[in-house]
């Protein structure tokens, strides 16, 4: 069923409370609470205040998860987003260093991102036979390659005028702007995916592209729009990345595509298409953000955090499948 999470532990729940508890989103909420309890026990510095202070670095990646969810629901994948972030960050730093007003910097990042996304979309819709993995692999290398050429032999650039970026990293009270923006964007993306005609069409394409095409959905138009939006959001993400580091280098955004995919898949969005919703994706994104902040406070190395994320990702997809298989085997025995 479209809209429902791709995974559930128990598929015959009776009461609504039980239904909610056993749905993937219910499990994620429980995991979220457990992760927070764990982090609070693990690190004495872990509280709401420190969480809000350290969140922005990780929150930028949550933006990428939103359109990535659409692409995964289509049954496709985009591994070029990290490179788009790199190119956008580079370009915005360059424009910033020319002394242009900050509005222009924002526009540059968004336009460059949109252009990159539309290149992906153009190639993928023009040559529909091509697997998205290969095309975005090539553009991943190209976009980062262009950034490398622009950055030159030094390989890095720093923004000379950081006022605008400082403004972007500002706060209302102790809540950073980025958190508001993430929540607003998440709600918009979730409503469009879950409630609008456009969203239903995305599910239809993900479930069966040919059927969707024959029932009059402009499959290629929708794919083009989604890949382009993915680019625009990458530009947005790049702005916030620059606002935390005040610069860009050739490794900016490295691995972001994997993090975004991991968040979405852990949130129950199937990578084979047509299943999952953004509620799960957003909860899982916050689980990962909290986990990173909590472990980071006790100087747990980034690699160890990635190890945990990797295991979570594999476990989240493998466990329901294994449980399903065991159940099936038991039924056959009976």
């Amino acid at each position, binding site marked *: 069923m479209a809209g429902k999470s791709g995974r559930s532990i128990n598929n015959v729940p009776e009461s609504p409370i039980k239904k909610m508890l056993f749905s993937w989103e219910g499990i994620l909420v429980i995991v979220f609470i457990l992760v927070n309890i764990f982090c609070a026990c693990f690190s004495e510095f872990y509280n709401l205040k420190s969480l809000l202070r350290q969140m922005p670095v990780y929150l930028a990646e949550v933006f990428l998860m939103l359109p990535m969810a659409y692409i995964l629901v289509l049954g496709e*994948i985009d591994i070029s987003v990290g490179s788009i972030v790199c190119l956008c960050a580079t370009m915005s730093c360059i424009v910033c260093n020319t002394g242009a007003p900050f509005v222009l910097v924002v526009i540059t990042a968004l336009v460059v991102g949109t252009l990159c996304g539309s290149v992906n979309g153009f*190639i993928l819709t023009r*040559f529909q*036979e*091509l*697997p998205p*993995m*290969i*095309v975005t*692999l*090539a*553009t*991943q*290398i*190209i*976009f*980062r*390659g*262009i950034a*490398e*050429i622009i950055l*030159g*032999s030094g390989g890095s650039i720093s923004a000379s005028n950081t006022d605008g970026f400082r403004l972007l990293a500002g706060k209302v009270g102790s809540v950073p702007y980025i958190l508001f923006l993430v929540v607003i964007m998440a709600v918009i993306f979730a409503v469009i995916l879950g409630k609008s005609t456009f969203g239903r069409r995305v599910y239809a394409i993900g479930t069966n592209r040919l059927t969707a095409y024959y029932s009059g959905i402009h499959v290629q138009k929708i794919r083009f729009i989604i890949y382009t939006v993915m680019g625009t959001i990458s530009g947005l993400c790049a702005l916030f990345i620059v606002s935390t580091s005040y610069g860009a280098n050739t490794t900016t955004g*490295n691995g972001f595509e*994997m993090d975004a*995919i*991991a968040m979405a*898949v852990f949130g129950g969005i199937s*990578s*084979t298409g047509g299943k999952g919703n953004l509620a799960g994706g957003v909860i899982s994104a916050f689980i990962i953000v909290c986990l990173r902040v909590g472990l980071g406070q006790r100087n747990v*190395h980034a*690699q*160890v955090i*990635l*190890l945990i*994320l*990797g*295991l979570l*990702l*594999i476990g989240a*997809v*493998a466990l329901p*499948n*294994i449980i399903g*298989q065991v159940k099936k085997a038991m039924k056959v025995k009976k």
Partner: protein
Amino acid sequence: MEKKSIVKKITGSREALLAVILILLFAVVSVISPSFLTVKSVTDMLKNNAVTMIMSLGMLCVMLVGGIDISIMSTLALSGMSIGMLLKYEYISNTVVAFAIALAIGTACGLLVGLVISRADVPPIIATMGFMYVFRAMGYLVSNGGEWASAAALGSFKDFATTKILGLSCVIWVIILCYVVFFFFMKWTRTGRKIYAVGSNANAAEVSGINVRNIKLLVYMIMGFLAGLGGAIQVSVYASAMPDMQLGGEMDVIAACVIGGVSMSGGRGTVLGALLGSLILATIAKALPLVGIDPLAQNTIKGVLILVVVVANVVLQRVADRSALKGREM
């Protein structure tokens, strides 16, 4: 039967076309820079790209069954780092033992990946993405939090890359051995043909009595084995082991296969194609500085090349389909 003309044969076969491109590439580069086509330069090129060349064989198998493996370079780092640390702290000193350990670790990693993909039905891209993080982090943990094993620590192990047998470096012999073995394995053994069968149509293969899950497990194990071998070779060629070696290199391996005509959806691709694909990539990387193009542009050119190859493939396929249709209408 009418005999096809040579021109048609060349344009019809992917491998022949690639070979022509490779020869043209060689010719152009050696005209511009005569130092390119010397024995030393070519053997250096092969040695530096040994890892990609060997591992594209494993990726060929994985892609033939319609899968993908992006965890390979993490497996390489884990196995390479393990033997690096073992050599550094003098638990082992024998080159053969070091190779055996690297291969064993690689195969074990491949087995784990294969089990998760074939038994728990996790999509390959998701499973290998997870293991990419896991193995890389394990490599980091093995290295005691980022230690390197430098040339001095590796003892006699690094001599493997510099030893010559019959005038050729050991590393090149390993490449040749791998390609010969795989050429026969994929073409003439039962298991090799089964891999093609599963890739062309998994359901048909299942019905005709092939254990699809075991074949899937097998290809990821082969991939892991070759990644382990790659780890040992990487350590000996560069005479150092560090936890972040070949970071992002899996894309090169996939690119080599794609350029070599291996289909992402499975069932199509040959050992010769993988060889030519990885050779073309290696030649371009080596030739760019020689013909006076800034090495900074290397990645962009590589990306454009992949794009051009896959798009050209689609266009050619469309033309072929259309002409086939025309033939039927008449």
